[in-house]
């Protein structure tokens, strides 16, 4: 079961500009949402607030499991993830990068090996697992980031511009992976993109940021 994300009366200003004002929206569990719009409209800020990396000026962000609202004691930060547009590559091997989230959860080595191998296969980097991650191309880095995010089996998977700065082959690969995740994992997917085609391909619902609110298209 995925997780429902509910934002209520969210307000966020940035250098006197109101980005969100009284914004309320519910991202239902196990569904895929695309937040579309040009750069600078607040898509990234919204995802960062939902990933608890940034605090809103006002309003609430609630995570619901069924009807039950989760709190800090439920370890929300360990159940959601956000793949940033710049992946944040650790200066180690591809394998260790993907294993990071499992290591911080103190998973057993055998479990880590199995999951990392399966995910690297999924993203097509199985043959590069021993390579230094910083030597990957930008498309490969993005796929590695996706594998790293999926390794922790997040109940909410957020992605900020997952196909920005990737070539056609990697674009197709990432699209296929996201479609596969959508169909095989019970994960709520929320991604920000300026690519309407990607939004149409993957999302069940497409929303846009307009006048400080999230509006369904």
């Amino acid at each position, binding site marked *: 079961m995925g997780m429902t994300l509910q934002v209520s009366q969210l307000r966020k200003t940035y250098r006197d500009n109101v980005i969100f004002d009284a914004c309320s929206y519910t991202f239902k569990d196990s569904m895929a949402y695309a937040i579309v719009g040009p*750069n600078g409209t607040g*898509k*990234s800020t919204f995802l960062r607030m939902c*990933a608890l*990396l940034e605090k809103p000026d006002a309003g609430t962000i609630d995570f619901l499991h069924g009807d039950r609202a989760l709190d800090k004691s439920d*370890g929300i*930060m*360990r*159940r959601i*993830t*956000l*793949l*940033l*547009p*710049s*992946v*944040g*590559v*650790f*200066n180690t091997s591809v394998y260790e990068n993907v294993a*990071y*989230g499992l290591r*911080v*959860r103190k998973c057993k080595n055998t479990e880590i090996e199995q999951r990392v191998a399966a995910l690297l296969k999924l993203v097509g980097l199985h043959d590069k697992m021993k390579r*230094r991650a*910083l*030597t990957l191309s930008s498309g490969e880095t993005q796929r590695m980031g996706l594998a*790293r*995010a999926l390794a*922790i089996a997040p109940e909410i998977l957020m992605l*900020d*511009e997952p196909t*920005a700065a990737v070539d056609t082959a990697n674009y197709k690969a990432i699209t296929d992976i996201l479609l596969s995740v959508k169909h095989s994992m019970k994960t709520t997917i929320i991604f*920000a993109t300026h690519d309407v085609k990607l939004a149409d391909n993957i999302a069940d619902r497409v929303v846009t940021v307009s006048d400080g609110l999230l509006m369904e298209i």
Partner: protein
Amino acid sequence: MDLIVEGFRKAFLLIYRLDADLMGIILLSLKVSLTALLIGTVAGVPTGAALSFKRIPFKHALLNIMNTLMGLPPVVVGLFLYLMLSRRGPLGSMGLLYTSSAMIIAQSILAFPIVVSLSYAAINGVSMVIRQAAATLGASQFQCTVAVIKEARYAILSAIMAAFGRLSAEVGAILIVGGNIAGRTRVITSAIVLETDKGDFAVAIALGIVLLCVSLSVNAVLYIISRRGRVGQASEYLWA
């Protein structure tokens, strides 16, 4: 010219024969500098990390002081420590003056601000996106801190090596608090000063060669570390 040639010939002979006095001086130098480096590192790296991660009052003032102390003249440290450790000084009863312990204290004082400032810069140089990546993967605050320090490891090592470079070539402070006593507090740099004064250039040159080799080794290690560190730099976060 003959003096120099003859000096070098004798110096190489001393090194080749592993002259006991020469080896004693070299070993004491390494012992003093490495112990001071260890103390400076154990105290300096966590201090640099704390300055980077924690909200500390007067943080910028502290950083300015540390940066200033990086260029602290060793003779000033020597003088200050001498006043503290001399019989009439507040710590005179400890009887540390003219011992290797006093030299280690002096060099630790010199190493500390170098390690603090450069470790701080190294940790701060790790892109914010690394901290955020760790956080988004469920790392606790402590685990995020460890991830950042791990990313800065090459630059921190460079900081430590830079401090060692300064300590191994330092003469002012150890000469004042060590006293240059043969077999007890005579180290490479203070021995070079003494032997040059005496006109025994062979020993001075031999020690100079060893010191140069130490410096070269430090620089070689620094070069290797900086090359690996360059690969370690993360790309900047792109704000969409």
